[in-house]
C-alpha cells in the first residue's frame, strides 16, 4: 500500500458515560485499505469506541472525520448518509431473528437499491456463498451455530458493498479453526475489494495475523499509548503495559 489516504480521522476524542471518563485524548487515523485493530484489555472501551465510530453513541468531546466530513458535528442526515457506506458485524451477529438469513441480507438491498427481487436473490446467494454459507438461505438465525451467525452477520454487513467494514470481536467465542477462517476471510475481502476494515479485538493471534495498523487503549492510563503495525509494536515497544498485552504477560 503506497498511497495512504485518510479514511477515518479521530481527533482529541474523549469517551465518557455520564461523569465517568473512559478514555481521553484519542487521536489516530485509519487509512483507506487498512486492517485497523482497536485493541486493549477488557473494559478499556473498545466497543464504546466502535459505537462512536458507527454513530450509535456521541463522544463526550473531540471529533471524528470521515474523509473531510465531520461525523458528529453535522446533522443526523449526514451521519446516516456516511454510515450507509459502512457495514457492521456485531459481536453476536445481531441478525434479525424473525427473518431468514436470505431476508436478513436482502433487507439492506431492498431498502437502498432498485434491484428486482430476482437480482436481489442472486446477490444474497453470492454474499452468503462468500462467507461459506451457500445453501443456508432459508434458515433462521436461531437454527445455525454461533460461528455461522457471525459469518452471516458479515454477509449482511457486506450486502451493499461498503467502503468500510466494522467488526466487533469477530473471533470471540469461536473455535481456533473457525477464528482462523474468519481472519482469512477478512484479509481476502480487503485484498479483493479494497475495503477498509476496523476490527475491535483482543485476540492476539488475529491481531498479528491480519492487522497492519492499530491503536492500543491502555485501561490503566485511560488513554491510547501506542499506534502502528502490531508486529512492529511487539518488536519495538518499551511500554510495559503494551508488552504485557502483546505477549500474554509472558516475560521475554
Amino acid at each position, binding site marked *: 500500500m503506497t498511497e495512504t489516504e485518510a479514511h477515518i480521522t479521530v481527533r482529541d476524542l474523549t469517551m465518557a458515560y455520564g461523569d465517568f471518563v473512559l478514555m481521553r485524548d484519542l487521536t489516530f487515523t485509519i487509512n483507506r485499505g487498512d486492517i485497523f485493530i482497536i485493541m486493549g484489555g477488557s473494559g478499556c472501551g473498545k466497543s464504546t469506541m466502535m459505537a462512536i465510530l458507527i454513530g450509535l453513541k456521541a463522544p463526550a468531546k473531540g471529533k471524528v472525520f470521515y474523509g473531510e466530513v465531520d461525523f458528529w458535528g453535522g446533522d443526523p442526515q449526514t451521519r446516516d*448518509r456516511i454510515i450507509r457506506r459502512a457495514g457492521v458485524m456485531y459481536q453476536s451477529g445481531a441478525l*434479525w431473528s424473525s427473518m431468514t438469513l436470505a431476508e436478513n441480507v436482502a*433487507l439492506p438491498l431492498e431498502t437502498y437499491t432498485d434491484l428486482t427481487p430476482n437480482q436481489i436473490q442472486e446477490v444474497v446467494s453470492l454474499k452468503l456463498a462468500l462467507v461459506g454459507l451457500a445453501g443456508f438461505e432459508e434458515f433462521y438465525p436461531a437454527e445455525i451455530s454461533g460461528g455461522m451467525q457471525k459469518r452471516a452477520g458479515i454477509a449482511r454487513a457486506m450486502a451493499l458493498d461498503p467502503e468500510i467494514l466494522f467488526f466487533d470481536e469477530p473471533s470471540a467465542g469461536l473455535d481456533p479453526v473457525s477464528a482462523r477462517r474468519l481472519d482469512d476471510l477478512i484479509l481476502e475481502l480487503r485484498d479483493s475489494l479494497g475495503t477498509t476494515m476496523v476490527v475491535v479485538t483482543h485476540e492476539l493471534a488475529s491481531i498479528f495475523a491480519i492487522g497492519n495498523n492499530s491503536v492500543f487503549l491502555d485501561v490503566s492510563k485511560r488513554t491510547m499509548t501506542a499506534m502502528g503495525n502490531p508486529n512492529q509494536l511487539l518488536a519495538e515497544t518499551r511500554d510495559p503495559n503494551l508488552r504485557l498485552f502483546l505477549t500474554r504477560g509472558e516475560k521475554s
Partner: protein
Amino acid sequence: MTASGAMSLEQLSGDTLKVTLSGDWKLGGDLPGADKIERTLQDRAGVRQVVFDTRQLTSWDTALLTFLVNVHKIGSRQKISVNHDGLPDGAQKLLGLATAVPEKTDARQPEGRVAFLDSLGNQTVYLFRSAGEFLEFLGDAVLAFQKLLRGKAQFRLTDLGLIMQAVSAQALPIVSLICFLVGLILAFIGAIQLQLFGAQIYVADLVGIAMVRLMAAIMTGIVMAGRTGGAFAAQLGTMQVNQEIDALKTLGISPMEFLVLPRMLALALMMPLLCLYANIMGILGGMVVGVGMLHLSFIQYFNETAKAVGLWNLGIGLFSGMVFGVIVALAGCMRGMQCGRSASAVGDAATSAVVTAIVGIILSTAIITIICNVLGI
C-alpha cells in the same frame, strides 16, 4: 458430624504471636473467628509479627483462606506483619493469588442508605425525564406516521400482515371468553335489581349500552395490553439485547418505522374490529341470562337491544377501541425500545409495558367519557 477446627494462640519470645491451627478447617464446620486474634493483639501490645503452625491441620478449604484474609486485614490495620511460612503450600499460593491484584477502590458502588429527600429528588427527576422520553417517543411516532402518509416509510408488508394476524385472529378466543363473561355478569347484576320492578326487559338495554359504548373496548384493551403489549415489549427488548436494533440503525433504517409503525398500525386497524366482535360476544352473554333466567324471548331481547343501542354508542366504542390499540402499541414499543441490555431488563420492560398500557387505557377512558358528557352524546 460436622468437621471442626481449633485454634490456639501463644506468645513466643517478645514480639511474635504464634497461631496454631488444628483439625478440619472446612466450610460449614465449627470454626473460631479471626476476631479472637484481634482481641489478643489489642490486649498484648508489643506484638510485631504473627506466625502460623499448621502441622496438626488435617484438611482445609475456602474457610481457612477467608480466615487468613481476615488475619491479613487485621495485620495491616495494626501494622503487624503476617508470616506465611507455616501455612500449607497450597494456601500460601492461593493467598498470594488473592492479594496479587490490589483491590480497586473506586470500582465499588457507594453503598449505604439514601436519604429520604435524596431519593425523593431522584424519583422526581426520573419522573420528569421519563415524561420527556415519552413525549419524544410520541413525537417520533407521529413523524413516522407522517412519513407513512407520504408513502415513504420503510417497513415490510409481510411484517404488518403477521402482526395483524397475531393481534386479531389469534386473540379471538380470549376476547370471546372475557367479553362473553362480562356480558353475562352485567346481566346478572342488572337482573337482580330490575326484577324488583318487573323490568327485566331492560337488562337488554343495560348490557347492550354498557358493552357497546364502553366495556367491550376496555376489556379488549386490557386483554390486548397483557397479551400484545407485553409481547411487543419483550420482542423489541430482546432485539435491543441482541443488538438487532443497533444493526437497523447502522443500516440507516429507522427502528421507529421498521418496528414500531407496523405494530401501531396493526393494533389501530384491528382493535375496532376486535371491539365489534367483543360487542357481539358481550350481548350474547347478556342474552344467555335474559333468555335462560329471565324468560324473555330471543326476539324480544334482540329487539330491545337494537332499540337501545344507537349508532353513536357504537361509534364511541369503536373509536375508544382504536385509541386503546394505539396506546397499547405505543406503551409496548416504547418500553421495548427503552429496554436495557439484560434478561431482567426485558422482564421489566414487559411488566412496565402492561402497566403503562392499562393506566393509559383507564385515563383515556375517563377523558373520552368526560368529553362525551360535555358534548352531550
